[in-house]
């Protein structure tokens, strides 16, 4: 099959990232330039993101027989570039590090961008690995620190097992269908010639592998330890970008390979319903007892994976759009929350709940920002988190899935408890050390930049939901 070179044009964002990756590698070798590596990474990512944005929404087509070029992929390319940009900014504000750190972030962004378009089992596997391997190294980037090394090792071990499981599922699928191409596999499914049980097993194993990426219960065990041990900017990055990448893969797999009403198949929405209920309930209940804020936010991010899975349980266009919308909102509020934790923990030396005592009087601006991020995570109007949940619940009610919706809203109430615990610590209690906690201007601006979208999307979200709708409509072959 001939591949017209013009198709390469669709790869411009990835090409920029590849070139940038190489440039960064060279920069790392030239001592005087090393300091500029962070800025350079920003430029590269911004360029890739802008190029991807200009392609929006474009037309859907399959290129090189393995890759979907569609609004869905473009949406996620922009999303990943944005998420990585915030991570770089976050790191620049947070700590000094080598050029290779930024190199790895760019590499990870490249992997995620490719993943968003993967239309083939092998490419999917390769891109997932391309995201994972930089992540393993990034988790251990504090070379001297035990906890960072421990986080990295745990991440690698769990990751290796889940990758193996996923690969096993993929090989089963290949053996059953004789193809790695999503379209061909789908056709095979629709013909219904293979035994449903085996297909179910194959898909289940693949989903388990991805479930690990998004920290879905029962594949979440790595999450709190890794999040706690890794440097905070990296934790924030993990909780947003690779998680969103997992959801991107999950979305594409669900929509192309598990169409609703596929009679010979399994009741996938039911499975997602169970996974969603278990994930959010466990995440929220476990978060209540946490004293370390990074751990608390780790469990909270597990809970949010559960909320996102509600969209899969609804398995309707509305549900998937809600997932895309929620991911955008989640990016801002979760980065924001982790950023505040980072600001405080760098001054206090640890990120325990009591380090935040009286923060409202020591650093009113930071504390107010933190409250906004937390209330948005709870899902209180008029903040964006509410709108995100509103769409997810709306999708469920639309499908008549009231029990899961009830579990979801009760979880919101539970989550209020531990988020408010932080707010109580900040505002209702007097500080242990009544000295102001000073923050740089850059950090304040970054906080503001993360806060504004939360307010704007809380009161006027039409454009964003339109983008999410457009990104989703055209994904089907």
């Amino acid at each position, binding site marked *: 099959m001939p591949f017209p070179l013009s198709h390469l044009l669709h790869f411009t964002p990835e090409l920029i990232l590849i070139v940038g990756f190489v440039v960064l590698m060279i920069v790392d070798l030239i001592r005087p330039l090393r300091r500029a590596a962070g800025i350079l990474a920003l430029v590269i990512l911004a360029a890739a993101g802008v190029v991807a944005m200009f392609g929006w929404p474009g037309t859907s087509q399959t290129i090189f027989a393995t890759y979907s070029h569609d609004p869905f992929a473009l949406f996620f390319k922009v999303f990943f570039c944005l998420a990585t940009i915030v991570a770089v900014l976050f790191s620049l504000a947070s700590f000094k590090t080598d050029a290779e750190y930024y190199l790895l972030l760019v590499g990870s962004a490249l992997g995620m961008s490719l993943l968003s378009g993967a239309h083939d089992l092998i490419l999917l596997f390769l891109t997932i690995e391309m995201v994972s391997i930089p992540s393993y190294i990034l988790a251990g980037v504090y070379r001297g620190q035990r906890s960072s090394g421990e986080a990295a090792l745990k991440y690698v071990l769990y990751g290796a097992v889940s990758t193996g499981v996923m690969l096993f599922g993929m090989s089963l699928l290949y053996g059953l269908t004789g193809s790695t191409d999503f379209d061909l596999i789908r056709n095979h499914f629709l013909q219904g010639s293979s035994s449903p049980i085996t297909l179910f097993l194959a898909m289940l194993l693949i989903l388990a592998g991805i479930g690990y990426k998004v920290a879905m219960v029962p594949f979440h065990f790595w999450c709190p330890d890794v999040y706690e041990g890794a440097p905070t900017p990296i934790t924030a990055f993990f909780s947003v970008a690779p998680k969103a990448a997992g959801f991107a893969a999950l979305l594409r797999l669900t929509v192309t390979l598990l169409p609703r009403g596929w009679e010979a198949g399994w009741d996938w929405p039911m499975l997602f319903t169970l996974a969603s209920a278990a994930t959010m309930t466990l995440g929220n209940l476990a978060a209540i007892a946490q004293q370390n804020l990074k751990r608390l936010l780790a469990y909270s991010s597990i809970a949010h994976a559960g909320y996102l899975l509600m969209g899969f349980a609804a398995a309707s266009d509305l549900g998937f759009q809600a997932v895309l919308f929620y991911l955008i909102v989640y990016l801002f509020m979760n980065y924001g929350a982790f950023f505040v934790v980072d600001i405080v923990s760098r001054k206090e030396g640890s990120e325990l709940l009591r380090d935040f005592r009286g923060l409202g009087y020591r650093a009113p601006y930071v504390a107010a920002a933190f409250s906004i991020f937390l209330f948005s995570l709870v899902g209180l109007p008029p903040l964006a988190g509410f709108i995100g949940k509103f769409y997810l*619940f*709306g999708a469920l009610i*639309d499908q008549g899935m009231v029990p899961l919706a009830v579990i979801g809203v009760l979880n919101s*109430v539970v989550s209020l408890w531990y988020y408010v615990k932080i707010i109580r610590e900040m505002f209702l209690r007097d500080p242990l050390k009544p000295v102001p906690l000073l923050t740089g201007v850059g950090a304040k601006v970054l906080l503001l930049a993360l806060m504004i979208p939360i307010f704007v999307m809380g009161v006027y979200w039409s454009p964003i939901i339109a983008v999410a709708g457009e990104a989703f409509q055209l994904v089907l072959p």
Partner: protein
Amino acid sequence: MTFLPVVGLVVLLFIPRDRLNAIRWTAVFFTGLVLIIAVVTWARFDPSQTGINDERGFQFIDHVSWIPAFNIEYFVGVDGLSMPMVGLTALLAFLCIFASWGIAKAVKGYFCMFLLLETGMMGTFVALDFFLFYVFWEIMLLPMYFLIGVWGGPRREYAAIKFFLYTLFGSVLMLLVMLALYLNTRDPVTGGHTFNMLHMMNQSLQGDWIKGDTLRALMFFALFVCFAIKIPMVPFHTWLPDAHVEAPTAISVILAGILLKMGTYAILRINYPMLPDTTMQFAWFIAFMGMVNIVYGAFCAMAQTDLKRLVAYSSISHMGFVMLGMSSFTPAGINGAVFQMFNHGTITAMLFLLVGVIYDRAHHRYIVYPKDYPEVELRGKLGFGGLANQMPIYGGVFSLAFFAAMGLPGLSGFISEALCFVGAFPTWQAFTIISVFGIVVTAGYILWAIQRLFLGTLPERWKTLPEINGRELFTLIPLGAIVILLGVYPSPVLSMMNDTLNYLNSVVEAGAHAAGVMSVWLPF
């Protein structure tokens, strides 16, 4: 009007935090402006327009599209049901700014939160789009949490989180019902789903009536629990004594004066016209719980040693009258209920302000010192006594407020309570008769409290208590005047809501009849 306080909040943010008087007067200015607008609206309000489910019946409408893709609108307006509440909100918010003069900690934050709260309250009363209503409803939560939690009494953390969790639990239930209603309501013009409350009330016209008795009953109770928490109805009332007692004076006033009304207002605005048949079916439950509230609240109030707790429990009791009246579907009952909402707002506001006055001076507010009081020799002794000698004006105003709460003829509380009973009796004879005994208990705890506080001999310790000052009187006199005025001449408020409420009655009855529910029903 709704967003003026937010403008004020933004202005406040730019005032340096040590310019206390500038901050206070800015808050006064903005709440005053809201009050003036409310008064003008009140004056120009045409009471013959009925509102409820017909957009033409609403006045001062703002109706613009907000999120067109989801048919969410910015749709606000007032009718005879919301107008008294809007007036009450504007008045109490203004007066409470003065009652907050003594706040010493983080003054700027306090007034910011207060103004945000006012926006939430106003918005809830005027919103006619369910989504908008929900947003305003939730906006009230945050400032309330901080106002109780940061500026409250010793157990404030507990009280604040309890309030927050209870209310949030209720509102998420409302969220689900809201979504269900949305997906079953069509705009008659465009045919798309809509959050417009009026269209939700007119579901049957579009043939979108939600089917299934069980489902309708579930929806009714999900909404009802949400609103009952706010009222607060027994057994969801336990947040109230804690929140009231721990909150600073002005916030107790707002809580009792306005937030409690949200519950009954929302039942009348949402449950009644949107689920008329289920409302009719379960009216007995509302009436029954109203009776329980009256009697239980009164007995609890009698047992209290803390004056503020006594007032808090008396609120529970008085909100029972509202529930009893509104479940009767008679003109007198429903008018009495809404009038009682208004009157309770003014009377309880007075009581909480007065409790605040004595607490500011004596730093305690025990009628009788509790048995675990730290100073052993004071345990079981009267907290005050003979205060009428030391603070005659204070004693006079307090007695006025107490008598109004008791329902003494000539004061506004009497009219609304009498209307509630007169209206409720034809429908719920047994419940009404039992409830009337609640009045006796009310008289009991109030007279007993007056006796122990103001009569008798003044202990040596309190001989230096200063008399109530001008600022405090300034907050009380308008309320006292309203209480007396409405007691002898209630028609300004009654005539304002009469047409709307009678229309609401007929809407509910028509809807229920159309669904085959012919009259109220008693299971036993």
